[in-house]
C-alpha cells in the first residue's frame, strides 16, 4: 500500500507541474494583455510602464518561475479586472460551484449506480430496457439542450422552478440535473455492464450456494467487485463536474467559478484565468488521488501487492 500510494502521489506532483506549464503557456500565447488593458491612444512609454508593472517585460523563463513560485503559495497576483488577489476572487465563487458539483455528483453516482445495479439484476426486464433507453438519451442529448428544454418546460411553461440564479434548494434542481446528465447516463451503463459481468462469476455462484440471501449476494459479493470500473469512470467524470459547470453555470446564471472563468477569459484577465485553471486542475488531481486511495481500500490485490 505504501509503495502504491507513494507512486500515486509522485504522479500527482508531476501532473501538477505539467499543468502549471500548460496554464502559463496558454495565457501567454493568447496575446498581449497590456495591449488590451491600455487605451489605443496611450503612449509607448505608458505601455512599457504597464508591461513592467505586470512583469511582462521579463524573459519568459523568469515569468514562469515567478508564476510557479506564486502558484505554489496560491498567489496568482491581482486580478486585472477586479483589482484584488485572483485567489480571493476565486474563493468567493468557489462555494457555489462546489455545492452544485456535490449535488450533481450525488445524483449521478447515487441514481446511476442504483439503476445500473437494478437493471443488471433484472436483466432483460422492462426496467432494464427503460433504463437503457434513458441512458442512451443521456449520452446522445447534450446537456445544454436538456437545460434549455427544462427551462422552457419546467420554469417558463409550468413555473415550477426558478429559471436561473442561486437561491433555495429549488434553484439547484435544474442545474444539478443538467450537470449530472451525461455522467449519470454513462455511469448507469457502466454499472449495468460491470454488475452483469460480476453476477456471472463463480464467486457469486458460490455465494448463492452458501445460501446467502440475494441482497447480500448482490451488495456484498457482487457490487464491491463491480465497483472498480465504476469508480474509474467516475473519477474520469469528476472533470465534467468542474469543467462542465462552465456551460451549465452560464446557462443558469449560476454565480460560480464556471461563469467567472468565461468573464476572465473575455477580459484576458491572466492572473484570474491562471488561478482558475490551476486551482481547478489541482482540485481534480487531488480528487483522483482520493479515488486511487479508495481503490486500495476496496481491492486487497491493489493494497497488498
Amino acid at each position: 500500500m505504501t509503495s502504491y500510494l507513494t507512486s500515486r502521489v509522485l504522479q500527482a506532483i508531476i501532473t501538477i507541474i505539467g499543468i502549471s506549464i500548460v496554464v502559463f503557456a496558454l495565457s501567454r500565447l493568447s496575446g498581449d494583455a497590456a495591449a488590451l488593458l491600455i487605451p489605443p491612444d496611450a503612449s509607448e512609454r505608458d505601455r512599457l510602464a504597464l508591461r513592467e508593472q505586470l512583469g511582462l517585460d521579463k524573459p519568459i523563463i523568469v515569468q514562469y518561475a515567478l508564476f510557479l513560485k506564486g502558484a505554489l503559495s496560491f498567489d496568482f497576483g491581482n486580478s486585472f479586472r477586479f483589482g484584488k488577489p485572483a485567489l480571493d476572487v476565486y474563493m468567493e465563487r468557489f462555494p457555489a460551484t462546489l455545492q452544485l458539483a456535490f449535488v450533481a455528483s450525488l445524483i449521478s453516482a447515487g441514481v446511476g449506480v442504483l439503476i445500473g445495479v437494478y437493471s443488471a439484476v433484472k436483466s432483460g426486464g422492462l426496467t432494464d430496457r427503460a433504463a437503457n433507453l434513458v441512458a442512451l438519451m443521456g449520452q446522445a442529448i447534450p446537456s445544454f439542450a436538456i437545460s434549455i428544454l427544462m427551462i422552457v418546460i419546467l420554469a417558463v411553461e409550468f413555473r415550477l422552478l426558478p429559471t436561473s440564479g442561486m437561491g433555495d434548494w429549488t434553484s439547484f434542481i435544474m442545474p444539478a440535473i443538467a450537470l449530472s446528465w451525461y455522467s449519470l447516463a454513462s455511469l448507469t451503463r457502466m454499472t449495468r455492464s460491470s454488475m452483469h459481468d460480476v453476477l456471472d462469476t463463480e464467486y457469486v455462484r458460490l455465494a448463492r450456494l452458501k445460501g446467502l440471501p440475494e441482497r447480500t449476494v448482490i451488495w456484498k459479493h457482487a457490487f464491491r467487485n463491480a465497483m472498480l470500473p465504476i469508480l474509474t469512470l467516475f473519477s474520469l467524470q469528476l472533470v465534467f463536474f468542474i469543467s462542465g459547470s462552465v456551460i451549465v453555470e452560464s446557462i443558469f446564471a449560476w454565480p460560480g467559478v464556471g461563469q467567472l472563468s468565461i468573464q476572465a477569459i473575455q477580459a484576458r484577465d491572466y492572473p484570474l484565468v491562471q488561478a482558475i485553471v490551476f486551482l481547478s486542475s489541482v482540485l481534480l488531481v487531488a480528487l483522483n488521488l482520493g479515488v486511487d486511495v479508495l481503490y486500495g481500500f476496496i481491492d486487497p490485490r491493489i493494497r497488498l501487492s
Partner: protein
Amino acid sequence: MTQMSGQPALLEVKNLRTYFRTRAGVAKAVDGVSFSLQQGRTLGIVGESGSGKSVTMMSIVRLIAKPAGRIESGEILFEGKDLLKLTDEEMRRIRGDQIAVVTQDPMTSLNPVYSIGNQLEEPLRLHQGIKTKSVLRDKVIAGLRRVGIPAPEMRVRSYPHQMSGGQRQRVVTAMALECHPSLLLCDEPTTALDVTVQMQVLRLLREIQREQRLSMIIVSHDLAVIARVCDDVAVMYAGRIVEKAGLVSLFENPSHPYTKALMRSLNGETDGKGRLHAIEGQPPDVRQIKRGCPFAPRCREAMDICTSEFPPEVVLSPNHTTSCWAVSAKIGSGPR
C-alpha cells in the same frame, strides 16, 4: 440406486427434467434422470461436457440460471420432502446448511475482495446464527485445520490471491463442510488442479466422507476420479443416465456401448495403430436430439430400433441397470 432393505434414501431424484430455452431451440439438458442415494454412500456421475451432469447437480440445489433455464418436471426428495415444492426462501435455508456444494474452479470460486476468514464466517452466521467474533474465528480456524491448511490462525487473514489453487480448493471444501451438511455435492472438484494436488483433494474428500458418514455426489468427466472415491456410478449421456451400477460391477461388467467406450479410453487401450481410443463422432447438441437413443449415431452396436425409440431400463443385477437395446436384445435371446 442400491435400495437397501428398510433404510429410506437420503436423496431420491425421480424423472428430473431441466430445460433451457435458447434462441436455437429448447436444450433438454437433463431429460428424465432418476437415481437415489443412501446415507453415507458416494455416487459418481460421469459424462462428457454437455451431458447434463452439472445441470443435474444445480437442479438439486435449485440454482438454474433463470429465466432461460427451468426445472420442467420431476421430484427431488431430500430426507423425504420434495425440494421442488419448497419456496425460494425455504430452499435458500437448506443451501449451504444441509446440502453443500464444492465448486469446480478454486481459482475463481472465492471472492477476491474479502479475506478467507470473512468468507468462511458467512455460512456460520447465516445458518447457525453465531454472532460472537471469537467463536466464529475459532470455528473457522478449526474448519481450516480439518482440511489440512497449515497455520490456519494466520491464513484466516489471507486473501484468495495469496493462496495456491490446491489451498483454495481446501478452503472451498472447508466452507462446504462448516455447517455439517448431510449431502455434499462436488462439481468437478479436481478438474482445475494439478494431478498431484488432485489426489490430495480426493483423499481428503474420502476421509471426511467416511468420518462424518456424509452422502456425496461427485460429478466428473474423469472415470479415474470417480473410481477413486465413489461407491456407485451413474453414466450420463445427452441428458440421460444410460447406465448405473456399483463401482466394481461397472468396471467388471460395463454394458452400455458408451460406458465400454469410456472404459477403453480410460485404460489407455490403443486401436492397433498405436493411437488411444477415441469415441468417434461428437456428443450430440442437446437442442437437436430427436427420437431414439442419443448415442445411436456414434454406437458400434446400433440397430434399427435405436434411432426410433429410447430404450427402457434393463436390470442386469440388483444394483446394475442400463438403457440399451443391444443389451436387452442379448438378454432376451439367451442366457446371460
